[in-house]
């Protein structure tokens, strides 16, 4: 097989960080090549350097044998490299169709042909079996749908090399399956595909070979089939891992049903968002919220956290009825909500890791009771160590961290408020295997400490592993609950899809 892409000795330094250090990377035509590594290993940076987002400090790039050095994503695209970047990078106020065809609208002599544009967008979405109005404004879609649109866009071009940086982080199984179908088909057509993911199942399901990065350096290149899972994890983490460490944890022990609920709702709902529902969370239990994409999980969380105003029902915390009409009020009552959209709703990009970490706690204390510098530093040191956040130092702007590490900072922000109830919306999105393990342990720890956790994840296994009970949402309505012994992936899937009869 021919070498499609060859990178030799690529290096890239940011202030205080060596992001890439003498990296070699090869992709053949007609293969799916996984690019793996921990959060902050340098995967995204490698991709950005290759596609001209940043200039490389050193290194040689060859595509199809010819030396290339694209100066911008546009130049890369013209060379036949089509990329889906890690953070969804589309234009929110444009329509789906406009986003998919942006910069390469069909039409004659520069004149737009709207029918062709829509047709093309619809075709691109149809390949992913995505049913979605091409005239809808992109910003109104859920993160997952936006991600699918971004993928559709990347597929809608004749490329030789397709790069997908964590495209599956916010997708559920159905969409992932569709994506894989297309990836295999493209592979058969002779494309080279670079695939970044933190889901090892997906690596084994679809890739031919893989390259592992650690701390910006290449660990090695392997044939996927020849590398056992544990060894792969070991290569990524740089240490021996035992099978026990990664065995599925037993379902969490059931909570004490006699204990009064920390958070309870009665008939809480909002027209057009979620039908009225009853829910009660007890201290020391992890409750899952299951559902397909767009089933209303996020909107339920928003309602609980006072981001949207409920138009019916009541809510009580520690048995006392209360009104939650702003996040500020929610935080004051001991709630915490780690949003799924970390870029828009989570990060303060230009502020430091330290400030991002303590902002919620400081907000809860109020402006006048400022944390002292020593307290702040202690807090940072604690959480940076506890969550193994990879950052040159706490004063680095958080936008310079890798995606997974940003996610950890946000988790830390909420843990620092020492909440009674924490709502985690896709908390493990984009987090590497090691860290996922740590976060799951953390959740177990929180439960042991008596917190109530509301856990939302598109990964069914993760839900089953971590939760003692799962509430199932379908079409914005709470349709069922499974607990304890009944809680299996199969059963849950049927409930979510509404096919359990």
């Amino acid at each position, binding site marked *: 097989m021919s070498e499609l892409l060859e990178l030799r000795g690529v290096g890239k330094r940011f202030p205080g960080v060596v992001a890439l250090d003498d990296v070699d990377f090869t992709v053949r035509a007609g293969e799916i090549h996984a690019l793996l590594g921990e959060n902050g290993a340098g995967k995204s940076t490698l991709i950005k350097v290759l596609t001209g987002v940043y200039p490389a400090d050193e290194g040689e790039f060859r595509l199809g044998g010819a030396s290339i050095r694209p100066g911008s994503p546009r130049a890369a695209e013209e060379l036949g490299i089509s990329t889906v970047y890690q953070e969804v*990078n589309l234009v929110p*106020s*444009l329509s789906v169709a*406009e986003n998919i065809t942006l910069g390469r609208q069909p039409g004659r002599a520069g004149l737009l042909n709207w029918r062709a544009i829509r047709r093309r967008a619809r075709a691109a979405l149809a390949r992913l079996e995505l049913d979605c109005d091409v005239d809808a404004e992109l910003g109104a879609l859920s993160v997952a749908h936006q991600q699918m649109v971004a993928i559709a866009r990347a597929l809608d071009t004749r490329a030789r090399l397709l790069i997908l940086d964590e495209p599956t982080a916010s997708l559920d199984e159905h969409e992932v399956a569709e994506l894989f179908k297309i990836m295999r088909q493209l592979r058969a057509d002779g494309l080279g595909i670079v695939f970044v993911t933190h889901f090892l199942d997906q690596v084994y399901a679809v890739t031919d070979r893989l390259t592992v990065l650690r701390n910006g350096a290449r660990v090695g290149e392997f044939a996927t089939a020849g590398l056992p899972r544990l060894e792969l994890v070991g290569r990524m983490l740089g240490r021996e891992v035992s099978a026990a460490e990664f065995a599925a944890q037993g379902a969490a022990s059931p909570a004490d049903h006699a204990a009064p609920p920390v958070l309870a709702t009665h008939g809480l709902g909002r027209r057009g968002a979620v039908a009225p529902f009853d829910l009660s969370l007890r201290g020391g239990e992890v409750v899952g919220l299951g559902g397909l994409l767009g089933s209303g999980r996020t909107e339920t969380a928003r309602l609980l956290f006072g981001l949207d105003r409920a138009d019916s029902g009541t809510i009580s915390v520690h048995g006392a009825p209360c009104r939650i009409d702003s996040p500020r009020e929610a935080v004051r009552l001991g709630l915490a909500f780690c949003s799924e959209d970390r870029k828009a709703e989570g990060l303060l990009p230009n502020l430091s890791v330290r400030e991002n970490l303590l902002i919620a706690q400081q907000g809860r204390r109020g402006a006048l009771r400022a944390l002292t510098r020593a307290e702040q530093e202690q807090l940072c040191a604690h959480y940076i160590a506890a969550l193994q956040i990879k950052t040159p130092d706490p004063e680095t702007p958080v936008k310079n961290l890798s995606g997974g590490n940003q996610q950890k900072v946000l988790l830390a922000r909420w843990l620092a408020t020492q909440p009674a109830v924490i709502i985690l919306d896709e908390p493990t999105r984009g987090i590497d295997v090691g860290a996922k393990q740590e976060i799951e342990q953390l959740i177990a720890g929180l439960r042991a400490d008596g917190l109530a956790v509301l856990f939302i994840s598109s990964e069914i296994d993760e839900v089953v592993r971590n939760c003692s009970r799962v509430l199932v949402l379908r079409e914005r309505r709470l349709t069922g609950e499974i607990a304890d012994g009944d809680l299996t992936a199969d059963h849950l899937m049927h409930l979510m899809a509404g096919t359990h009869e």
Partner: protein
Amino acid sequence: MKVRSPLLWPLAGFVALLLLNAVFNPAFLKITLLDGHLYGVPVDILVQGSRTMLVALGMTLVIATGGIDLSVGSVVAIAGAVCAVLLQDGHGLALTLVAAVGAGVLAGSANGLLVARLGVQPIVATLILMVAGRGVAQLLVDGQVIIIASAPFEFLANGFVLGLPLAPLLVAAAYVSAHLLLRRTALGLFVEAVGDNEQASRFAGLAAARIKTLAYVFCGACAGGAGILTAANIRAADAYRAGENMELDAIFAVVVGGTALTGGRFLILGTAIGALLIQTLTTTMYNLGVPPAVAPVPKALLIIGVALLQSERTTRWLRGLAGRKEAA
């Protein structure tokens, strides 16, 4: 719930103003024929408003890219000065017009260079030319108000064709061409994409810097055109006052017309309505004899009113009120 057209509120304001005037002064809407051309207050509004409309057209694009151009007033003064100097030296009309628009293009390129290539913030970058540009205009005319004695030149601003005023026709032509250019090609889309999310646009392969530069150049050209009309209207180049405060009126027109200052989606038809609305308001104040110290207030109130009605937060709040009433 159907999404309402963003043109609704400015249009409603426009109609309301016309009605208000017509009630207080029935002669307001009367149009007569005088010397074979139309004559009346609505004609005045169109003629006087045409300059702001032209400047606001360019401003719309700049604002859509997420920028702002404060230098348009100075560019109007420069273009007028160029016209006066060239006509005085006996150059032809065609050359004069090209040179005046060219001066605008040059100014726009300077702004574009600073903003798009060198990353200076638009307010700062264009303030420079706003401040320094008037000096340039004064240097051109040597601090004097130069009288222009060219009938064809004056005709551009004050002439009538088939009984219709020429200046609004020219500006309307500019709007139609801009609309076709922006909406029939992908240019308009590119501008909106860059204004909404510059980084994503770059990732999507758009030449963001070039698109932004183009917007500023276009805005400069429009301001140059408005400079021609202004000089032709008063048959003189007044480097000291021409185009004063025009950036404010243009920005108002754009905002009232429904284009957000944060960039992204733009509505050139809205801008045209916005400019007419502002002009009508000025005329109205006049007609109703509002005392001078109070005169800016209704204008301010109108603008805030439209801005409020367009703000999502207010809409939500109003809807909340309505909802509560429904529930009761």
